[in-house]
């Protein structure tokens, strides 16, 4: 595949990497596994990229591949991920207004999502991302009715975890 395509892919992914980080943070519980899963999702996205025709939104396509990787394809490996630049957001935030409550709430939310099963994790993320039931059903490969039923169950489970 051409270098030009690779550069275009790297640029688009760099701008939208937040989506993958949200999936990684939900499906892993440590930095090494997070980076490992991120790399695997990147590889799967790259394999699929030449076939992406834009018939769905780029973010929707990324979520689909990311969930498929996290749920079905990913095997933990021992590789180490080298990066050219990693920065710690918290250090930057020292000098800005830092909302400890929101950060704590987010941490609790991610911990709660992590304790769900693989399918429920996907449902929780798609709910928080405000995806329609039609999109959720399409991504998971189930009917809209089933998507609603499963979503309600997941939301109840999530509430119970957050309010023990």
């Amino acid at each position, binding site marked *: 595949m051409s270098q030009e395509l690779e550069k275009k*892919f790297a640029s688009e992914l760099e701008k939208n990497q937040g989506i993958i980080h949200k999936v990684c943070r939900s499906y892993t519980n440590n930095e090494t596994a997070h980076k490992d899963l991120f790399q695997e999702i990147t590889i799967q996205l790259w394999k699929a990229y030449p076939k992406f025709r834009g018939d769905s939104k780029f973010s929707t396509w990324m979520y689909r591949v990311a969930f498929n990787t996290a749920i079905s394809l990913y095997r933990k490996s021992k590789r180490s991920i080298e990066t050219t630049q990693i920065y710690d957001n918290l250090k930057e935030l020292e000098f800005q207004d830092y909302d400890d409550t929101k950060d704590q709430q987010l941490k609790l939310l991610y911990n709660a999502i992590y304790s769900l099963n693989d399918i429920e994790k996907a449902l929780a993320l798609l709910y928080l991302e405000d995806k329609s039931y039609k999109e959720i059903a399409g991504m998971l490969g189930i009917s809209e009715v089933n998507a609603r039923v499963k979503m309600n169950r997941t939301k109840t489970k999530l509430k119970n975890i957050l309010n023990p």
Partner: protein
Amino acid sequence: MDQLEKLKNVWKDQSESTIKFTESDIYNMVHQRSSSIVKWILIISILEFVLPNLFILFSDFESTKTVYQNYGLNDSMLVYTIIHVIVILGFIYLFYKNYKNINAECSVKDLLHNILKTRKTVKYYIYYNLTMAAIIGIHVFYIVFNSEQFINKLPTNTSMVMIWLVAIGIFAFFLFLFWCFYRIIYGFFLKKLKNNYAELQEAE
């Protein structure tokens, strides 16, 4: 406002991840080795196709041919070999067709279905091998145990029923051991995928 709806706002306002990759990092990542199970499915499946047949290929040809010759089994073994080759080619074709359908862009349920279907092809291939081994084994036992050469060598008053029971018992035991071993590996390997598929299938 519902608690989860409030948390949606926290979710939307979340700052960027503490882990962040540059374009250069991502560019390097795409050239790394994948750790996807699809690669392992292919490697293990190839081994499962090849190993049972390697056993036949590396068995002692001359002594085996002599046995077949002495007991008039040449024609039968030729027929079994032809059937076996046709069936293997059929399974390889089915496996390849199912394997090519494994793709990360389809829905989560379809991907799980395609992976499980691909492994099912290999599972049925293994069952075919066990069944063929049983059929050939019983056929060979029948010919050998009913031959004059064999009967003449037996001590007097030997029970043929006992000989059959012992032969089938030992043979069945080894086939069973192989089947158990295979089921453990197969079950372990695909347990998570089967559970996720069942979760999606529920209430459809």
